[in-house]
């Protein structure tokens, strides 16, 4: 009892010491890695741009009945806040945000702000001449901002425009996730699927999963026999064979992708060779790259070592006597393999497959360089929204979905194999 207590206390102290050693790195990973993921997830639901730029407009719109364009106070707030946003150089972001809710409004906002700069009514200005009468206008009261802005763009007379501003002004939104799953919010608030021909992301996610599955299967089919060969090779030959797997493993990803461009392109080495030996004629050159074939071939090449190495490290621990014993008991090779060898290599198979699959669904560089138009995966869409369309909220939502997929796989991997058993190299 006393001894157990002492050992328990010693254990607790040692546990504390162990944690003290782990904490610096855990804190570092927390700040440099986990916090950024948090920032991304926040970005996927948090849309403060319009709310920050047009606070008064949105507050006044809260009391708007939505039946027709609002009255002078709202127009005045909008005009002043658009001018302020233009001054603060945030107008572009505001206009983009509103435009994503309702297409076509970007130019309406920027044009209005530009014209207001030269033609904004002074605070005491009388109503301009020649304004049309309007039911929602308080009879007789001057409405200089309303008249000026309506004169600049007819869109401000539309209820839909104001609705769009109201919706873009929500600080938190699930819209990016709806968008990322090809769903849309109908005007009445119901969530509906996009029409078939407008769906982009779900088919792409499906394609990414399918390609990853195919690449994983290919890697297993190519890698298992190779790992078996290396594991059973005589000790003087095994390291040499292993080098043939390790060289590509260590070679830069960019280098390997460039190699495949050199090999596979229409004027590339393989096509030249096939033409030279007469298999193809000049016009019959194969399109093996800048499409799905290119993506699959290059990805399989890049990921194959990640399959072979864990397989090999498990196979090395399976004693060859087991297969001999099975054979001497009368099992044919396929039976002995299926019932004795294969089950013992399953941890390696699980490790290799999950590793390759996880790496494949997040693949970016290779598809971007050799995938052309048809060989793009979900990662390329994330990069597109990060760098070209600048729709960062949507990029973050797509990233969030990808992260959940990978997290689920990672947990499965941890349960099946255990992350602490992960090995690099041999």
């Amino acid at each position: 009892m006393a001894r157990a207590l002492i050992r328990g206390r010693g254990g607790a102290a040692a546990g504390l010491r162990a944690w003290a050693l782990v904490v610096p790195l855990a804190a570092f990973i927390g700040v440099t890695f986990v916090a950024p993921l948090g920032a991304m997830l926040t970005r996927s639901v948090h849309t403060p741009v319009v709310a920050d730029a047009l606070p008064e407009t949105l507050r006044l719109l809260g009391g708007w009945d939505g039946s027709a364009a609002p009255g002078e106070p709202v127009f005045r707030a909008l005009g002043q806040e658009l001018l302020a946003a233009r001054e603060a150089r945030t107008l572009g972001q505001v206009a983009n945000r509103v435009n994503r809710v309702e297409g076509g409004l970007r130019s309406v906002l920027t044009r209005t702000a530009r014209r207001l700069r030269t033609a904004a009514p002074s605070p005491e200005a009388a109503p301009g001449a020649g304004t049309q009468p309007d039911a929602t206008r308080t009879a007789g009261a001057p409405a200089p901002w309303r008249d000026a802005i309506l004169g600049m763009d007819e869109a401000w007379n539309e209820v839909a425009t104001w609705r769009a501003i109201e919706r873009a002004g929500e600080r938190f939104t699930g819209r990016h996730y709806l968008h990322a799953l090809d769903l849309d919010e109908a005007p009445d608030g119901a969530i509906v699927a996009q029409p078939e021909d407008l769906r982009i992301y779900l088919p792409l996610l499906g394609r990414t999963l399918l390609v990853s599955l195919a690449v994983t299967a290919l890697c297993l089919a190519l890698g298992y026999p190779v790992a078996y060969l290396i594991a059973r090779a005589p000790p003087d030959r095994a390291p040499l064979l292993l080098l043939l797997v390790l060289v590509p493993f260590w070679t830069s990803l960019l280098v390997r992708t460039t190699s495949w461009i050199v090999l596979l392109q229409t004027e590339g080495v393989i096509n030249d060779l096939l033409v030279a030996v007469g298999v193809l004629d000049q016009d019959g050159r194969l399109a093996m790259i800048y499409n799905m074939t290119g993506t699959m071939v290059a990805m399989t090449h890049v990921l194959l070592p990640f399959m072979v190495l864990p397989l090999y490290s498990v196979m090395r621990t399976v004693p060859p006597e087991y297969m001999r014993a099975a054979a001497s008991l009368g099992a044919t090779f396929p039976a002995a393999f299926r019932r004795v060898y294969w089950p013992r290599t399953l941890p390696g198979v699980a490790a290799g497959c999950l590793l390759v699959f996880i790496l494949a669904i997040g693949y970016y560089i290779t598809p971007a360089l050799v995938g052309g138009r048809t060989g793009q995966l979900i990662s390329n869409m994330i990069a597109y929204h990060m760098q070209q369309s600048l729709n960062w909220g949507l990029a973050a939502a797509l990233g969030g979905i990808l992260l959940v997929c990978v997290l689920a796989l990672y947990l499965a991997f941890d349960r099946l194999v255990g992350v602490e058993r992960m090995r690099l190299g041999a």
Partner: protein
Amino acid sequence: MGTTLHRAFCAAVFVFLIAPILVIVPLSFNAEPYFTFTEGMLRLDPDAWSLRWYRTVAGDEQWLQAVVNSIVIGVGATVLATTLGVVAALGLADPRMPGRRLAMGLLISPMVTPVIVSAAGMFFFYTSLGLAQTHVGLILAHAALGTPFVVITVTATLSGFDANLLRAAAGLGAGPWVGFRRVQLPIILPGVVSGALFAFATSFDEVVTVLFMGGVEQRTIPRQMWSGVREEISPAILAVATLLILFALFLMGTVEWLRRRGGRPA
């Protein structure tokens, strides 16, 4: 019969693995601006072969700057990742540590998160801290991506370390620091160096965070290759690729040599 077929199949897979890397090397000596073998090269005409593209790279300010950037960022990230990773691995190697599995899961997570997701998050977060488009930002990012490799290799090495050696050192009067530095560190050094090389290779080959977060000042070698492949395809990138292959062989050779010496698989 079965074995012959098996061997032929494996030979084909080995060719698939190695040939694409080997084909780059002779093509980098092409005298013409083509990505394929010219007739002259096949006839082994000396005029068809040249060091032209190596000279182009050596005289190009952008490439030289990229080399400097890659080394500065790579070394910075490696020092950071190795220091933190070794200390953490010492803790993780203690089987009495509560929540060990959880801690390991957290520390390995940068390795299994798709880089595109990490890079997007880092772009948002580091921009808000003013660290985007700085060397420091990229060093931190690459250190985070490299630490799992250090943790994995060093914990694997430590699992073969005999803790009695430390007790013996303590019995002879060595404090914990002296015991670590004089007894434990020399024994686990091969694992530490392997981990550091893995971390360096990770940074040296990383392009996505550089694409998202780096400015013109932070262009690294892979970033430069990326533009080379996408924009102005010239055999100069084949020359760089050949140099990178040699460098990879050097890194791999060192790690394999250390592995043999250390005797423990990592």
